[in-house]
């Protein structure tokens, strides 16, 4: 029987290949937007036990904010704590229970601190001393 489709093989050059889970390095032309940082929402921080981790990358796919990263040349899992909201989905999907949830107040760093509230100029004037 004759097939309707031909089989094609496309050679994708290395520099044009789509990375795993579609995470691309964003150029950030205006720098980090401090108003958009969601690290302050986090109550429990994900902490990974690299010895237990089997690199199945379920957590990378599960993270709604793409804050689970492949670091160390793609050999390890890391977290972008500026944006991680602590939802716990990575802990939930991990098949080997390698990701723990630790209270954020147990750590000294990791959360971008907002010294002032983000206000429109005419509202800012009402807060001024």
């Amino acid at each position, binding site marked *: 029987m004759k097939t309707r489709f031909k089989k094609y093989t496309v050679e994708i050059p290395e520099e044009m290949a789509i990375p795993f889970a579609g995470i691309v390095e964003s150029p950030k032309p205006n720098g980090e937007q401090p108003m958009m940082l*969601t*690290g*302050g*929402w*986090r*109550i429990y921080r994900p902490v990974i036990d690299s010895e237990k981790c089997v690199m199945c990358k379920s957590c990378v796919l599960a993270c709604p904010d793409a804050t689970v990263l492949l670091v160390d040349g793609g050999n390890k899992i890391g977290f972008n704590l500026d944006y991680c*909201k*602590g*939802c716990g989905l990575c802990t939930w999907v991990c098949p080997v229970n390698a990701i723990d949830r630790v*209270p*954020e*107040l147990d750590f000294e760093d990791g*959360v*971008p*601190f*907002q*010294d*002032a*509230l983000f206000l429109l100029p005419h*509202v800012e004037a*009402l*807060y001024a001393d």
Partner: protein
Amino acid sequence: MIEITVWCTGVIQDKEGRDVCLVLTEAAFNEGKFTQAFDNYVDLPDRINVQVRKYARISDTVIENVFEYENHKPNIIGVTEATIMKGINVCYGIQPGSVLVINTTKDPEELLKYVPAKQKKNLKAVATIDALGIAPEQLIDYSGSEGAEDASAIGGGLGAAMAGAIAAVSGLVKKESVLAAAANRTAAKRGYDEVKIKQL
């Protein structure tokens, strides 16, 4: 006029934060004071765990600024989840002689490091209360922060313990008034009695 701002986490503690304001204002209203308690949509409170503010005002005279839906210079700050303090300056804009009441199992000294020096000099006292341990029931309100229906009683959860603690630290309202206003009378009483205060 005394202005109260309560910081809570979006959706998860939305009702509890609102309850702190409602219990305190109802207690003050029954003592014959003029009160306001309100939410504001400015913090986009429909997102789970976002830092949200709830407001209350208590005054001996008529409150005239009815169209300002934000407390710009608060006197009392309540924090229903201590981790909020790590990410945001909850004391922004406080008046001299303000008090800060936090729901946590930790001691007041441990959380002072999250208050910048400019605001710390305006603080009169810091207090902590294990409100979640006293009243662990939290009503998670997925209907958002826009009022909707609130069939459950006011001050049934940790909001009652927080309101009791704020009354004890600030001396704003009498103990009996808070107990009468909160649905969970035991939690309000324990909040009033078990609060750990550090004078600065």
